[in-house]
């Protein structure tokens, strides 16, 4: 890392907002679809028109519970909505309905690759605000986004490096996407991270004064911002200058954090229980049935792939990165002995054709998992040797057609014993030097003879049997 790492320790916690992939908004039936014409996904409720009343979307509760279960949280059977009061043009009611005192999930964790757990203090549900568009002196306001459901995931200050922060966010994104609960894309704004960061001398147990960094629109900017801010705080400490608790933004062009002017002191949000909404009451039965809907999560797949199938950890990570890839792999490998080959072929030839992350996430190769499995079964049963199979795979990826199209009848039908014996005897006759070498103890020479047998049988010879006969004849 950096030279300061020996003397100082960076301590950070993250607050992440994820937009939920429900069809409708949190308190009304307006669409959450991105990109509509301004102010066309609005109704009296999300506009906060006088007399309107909110009504909580069932799916939002379900999604929040799923997120909580997937991160080992305790799901609170009683949780409650609160009002957070402040005035801003993008907030139609002049309060945001959120959960302050009694969030729906608490005390979970996400485990990083280095084994460390990042504890999750809480997950709660809340509504999003509208969008302000600044144009010179005017501000234009679009309320389409107002009322889109969010979950906020707050960690304890357990993060100890910008890289850990990155990994935490990536793991969180992975989990949310696996659950289908959120797209979790920072660039699109469906995932927003705020970082609370402080530093302290190594060995110190008290926390230093923290600053909050907001509005970072990508993981790499978040990492850069954290690195910069850490250095800045350390240099202040070295000069005995106290660190101000303030809110900062990361200026990408300048590569530094700067104070967000205009955030005058801490707002007093005057939280109080939302009188228009009954508390959110869940039973153990509700939670059990939501738990049924939990897909196998990345960390469970990691265990299974590495321990049961003996797929190397780095390959496993690539396979489980996107649920679509993992499910493709599982379908293709279903019933196979040699699961590793399926893994290799996906990570090798198939991935080669799908270069971008976005495409990998959608994962729709020209070959379907069933088609792949078909080919792999033929390979496994010895009907097609490895090299030809690989070639067939490439042809399948080129055309999207099943392997049957590329395998001739002749190739599929088993070679008769006589033909095989003859081919072996021919090979010995054609490569006398290799035959001599083998008789003289150079066992490797068998390979050349085997190669010849393969060529003459157009690859149909089963390798083990050919070897057996060759050795017989060479005695």
């Amino acid at each position: 890392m950096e030279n300061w790492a020996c003397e100082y320790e960076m301590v950070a916690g993250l607050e992440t907002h994820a937009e939920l992939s429900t069809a409708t908004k949190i308190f009304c039936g307006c669409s959450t679809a991105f990109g509509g014409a301004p102010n066309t996904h609005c109704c009296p409720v999300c506009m906060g028109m006088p007399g309107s009343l909110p009504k909580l979307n069932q799916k939002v509760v379900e999604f929040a519970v799923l997120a909580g279960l997937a991160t080992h949280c305790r799901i609170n059977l009683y949780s409650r909505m609160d009002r957070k009061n402040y005035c801003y043009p993008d907030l139609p009611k002049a309060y945001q309905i959120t959960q302050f005192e009694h969030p729906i999930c608490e005390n979970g964790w996400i485990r990083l690759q280095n084994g460390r757990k990042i504890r999750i203090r809480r997950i709660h549900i809340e509504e999003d605000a509208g969008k302000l568009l600044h144009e010179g002196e005017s501000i234009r306001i679009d309320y389409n986004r107002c009322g889109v459901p969010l979950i906020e995931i707050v960690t304890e200050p357990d993060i100890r490096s910008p890289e850990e922060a990155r990994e935490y966010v990536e793991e969180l994104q992975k989990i949310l996407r696996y659950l289908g609960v959120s797209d979790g894309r920072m660039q699109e704004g469906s995932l927003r991270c705020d970082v609370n960061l402080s530093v302290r001398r190594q060995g110190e147990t008290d926390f230093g004064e923290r600053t909050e960094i907001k509005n970072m629109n990508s993981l790499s900017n978040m990492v850069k911002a954290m690195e910069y801010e850490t250095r800045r705080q350390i240099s202040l400490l070295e000069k005995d200058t106290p660190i101000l608790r303030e809110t900062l933004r990361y200026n990408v062009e300048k590569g530094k954090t700067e104070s967000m002017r205009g955030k005058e002191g801490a707002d007093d949000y005057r939280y109080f229980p939302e009188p228009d909404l009954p508390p959110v009451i869940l039973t153990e039965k509700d939670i059990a049935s939501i738990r049924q809907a939990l897909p196998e999560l990345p960390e469970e797949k990691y265990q299974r792939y590495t321990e049961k199938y003996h797929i190397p950890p780095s390959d496993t990570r690539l396979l489980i990165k996107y649920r679509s890839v993992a499910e493709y792999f599982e379908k293709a490998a279903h019933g196979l002995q040699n699961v590793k080959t399926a893994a290799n072929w996906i990570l090798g030839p198939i991935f080669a054709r799908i270069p971008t992350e976005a495409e990998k996430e959608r994962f729709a190769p020209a070959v379907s998992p069933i088609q792949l499995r078909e080919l792999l079964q033929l390979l496994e049963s010895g009907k097609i040797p490895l090299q030809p199979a690989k070639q067939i795979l490439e042809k399948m990826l080129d055309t999207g057609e099943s392997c049957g199209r590329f395998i001739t009848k002749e190739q599929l039908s088993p070679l008769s014993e006589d033909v095989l014996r003859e081919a072996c005897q021919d090979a010995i006759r054609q490569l006398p030097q290799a035959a001599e070498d083998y008789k003289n103890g150079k066992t490797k020479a068998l390979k050349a003879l085997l190669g010849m047998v393969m060529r003459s049988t157009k690859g149909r010879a089963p390798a083990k049997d050919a070897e057996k006969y060759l050795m017989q004849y060479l005695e």
Partner: protein
Amino acid sequence: MLIPEEWSRLLSLANLSLSEEEKLSLRADLEAMVAFAEKLGDFSYPETEKDTSTQSSSELRPDILAPSLKQEVVLQNAPEKDEAFFLTRGKF
């Protein structure tokens, strides 16, 4: 009873600006109201924070689309707007 900083902070939170005369009389009002409300302090009460309402399940709505208002209807009552947006001025 309320120190001046608290008073001006209160006005700022309430999003109200008052004339000097209004400030004087409303401040007196507020202090009388607060003294009145302070009588609550004479009472002890049971410490049950959770809402022990009789509701056993919350009223939730299914995640099904309902028609939104047309853009011009949404903007109908806006004092300042352009074709598609509500308008306000930036901060100075």
